[in-house]
């Protein structure tokens, strides 16, 4: 069961919403698909993105995956600890493995995202 305080995208990102700030990461399902993460490319604080924009890349030994942002907004924090410890993404994808924090322009955009229950159902059909 995925954490039920998060919202999920079909591309396997999660977002934790608190007022107008969203914390974004990728799901356990995604990290299992990738295998060991070896390199993470993230944006800078102050960069702005629209819903659906690619905001970075995650690389495993065998593949590179593009990351998509589920909301519009400005990056307010980046998880710098991942630079020297990309494996954190595999070990703790929902907490220490967070990727970026974003100030959302329109928090109502999250209404299109999946709940934990819906996401679990969705990944079951992808397997």
């Amino acid at each position: 069961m995925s954490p039920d305080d998060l919202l999920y995208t079909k591309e396997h990102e999660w977002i934790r919403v608190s007022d107008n700030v969203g914390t974004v990461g990728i799901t356990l399902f995604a990290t299992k698909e990738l295998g060991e993460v070896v390199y993470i490319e993230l944006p800078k604080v102050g960069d702005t993105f629209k819903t659906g924009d690619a905001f970075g890349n995650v690389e495993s030994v065998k593949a590179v995956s593009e990351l998509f942002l589920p909301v519009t907004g400005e990056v307010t924090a980046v998880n710098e600890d991942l630079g020297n410890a990309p494996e954190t993404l595999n070990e703790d994808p929902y907490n220490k493995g967070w990727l970026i924090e974003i100030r959302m322009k329109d928090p109502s955009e999250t209404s299109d995202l999946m709940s934990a229950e819906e996401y679990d159902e969705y990944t079951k059909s992808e397997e």
Partner: protein
Amino acid sequence: MLTSHCIFEGGSLSENKRTALFAVHKRMGARLIPFGGWEMPVEYGGIAKEHAAVRSSAGLFDVSHMGEFEVRGPDALALIQRVTCNDAAQIEDGQAQYSALPYPEGTVVDDLLIYRHNAEHFLLVVNAGNIDKDFEWISTNNSFNARVENISDRISLLALQGPKALEILQKFTNTPLAPIQYYHFARGKVLEADAIISRTGYTGEDGFEIYFSPEHSESIWNAILETGAPHGVLPVGLGARNTLRLEAKLLLYGNDMDQTTSLLEAGLGWIVKLDKTAFVGREALLGQKQEGLKRKLIGFEMLSRDIAREHYPAFVNGTEVGHVTSGSPSITLKKNIGLAYLPAEHSAIGSTFQVSVRGRMCDAQVVRTPFYKRR
């Protein structure tokens, strides 16, 4: 998250063939992916762990997707000499040889292993994705009376690779393994199976490849893993097979060479014996040698933390001059390495160039290969 530039891309799983060990892989929790028309394990419990096991202990690979052809008859050697570029007349009974099938242009139909049972009986081992193409190519060129038979469906192939491979495998066979020299083989029993036990591999380590009838697959697989587990032996998927072979600069057909690259450009001049009897592609390869090569497959290290992947373009002074054919983190060396085609004038050891990593220019340097050599 959208995955691209995966080293393994292919069609849907349902169209793919399965080896005799498919159910075993599934039960062990392997991630299965389409590869060369087969549904194969890419990893069981992490590519890095599996890679390290092969370097420090041993790893067991199911590579039964590989193709096997038998060539028999008084003209067997004549046919092999005609279609391959290495000199198969130089190997003795019980010896194996790395070789390739050239096109008339000197480009590559496939690379392969040739095993000589005796003067009138050879075994050819080819890449899974090329089985039909190779069989047709060899048959088309069989103006001799050699009998060529595709026995791929009747052969399972396991590879046990790593410093502990000999010790572990010896527990399951009475055939003395230590006397088998590198690129030689013996015929003997492994458990109940009549097997070819070959001291060859695709990892840069000592080890063996074992050919036998598929019904013995599960018993041999399980026995090796159970006995090997306390020694650190792991099952290894295609993911680590790729990172291992790249560190050892063993080429991968379809990435590092194919029908568009010449054997000489690919650095396989050492298996092109222009002074043996006439063979398909000889004239073209001789011409290329006399004229000099315009481009070469080189090994490189990234000077930044970025990872170059296959198909990424290579630049010198802002001009696109070539492309990456294989690229990956090197798990043993903790660097990002790869192979690329570059113009000959930029291919010297120490030369620098750039790889465009999703639009960003990242510095790389030509280095000596193999990247990794066992002690």
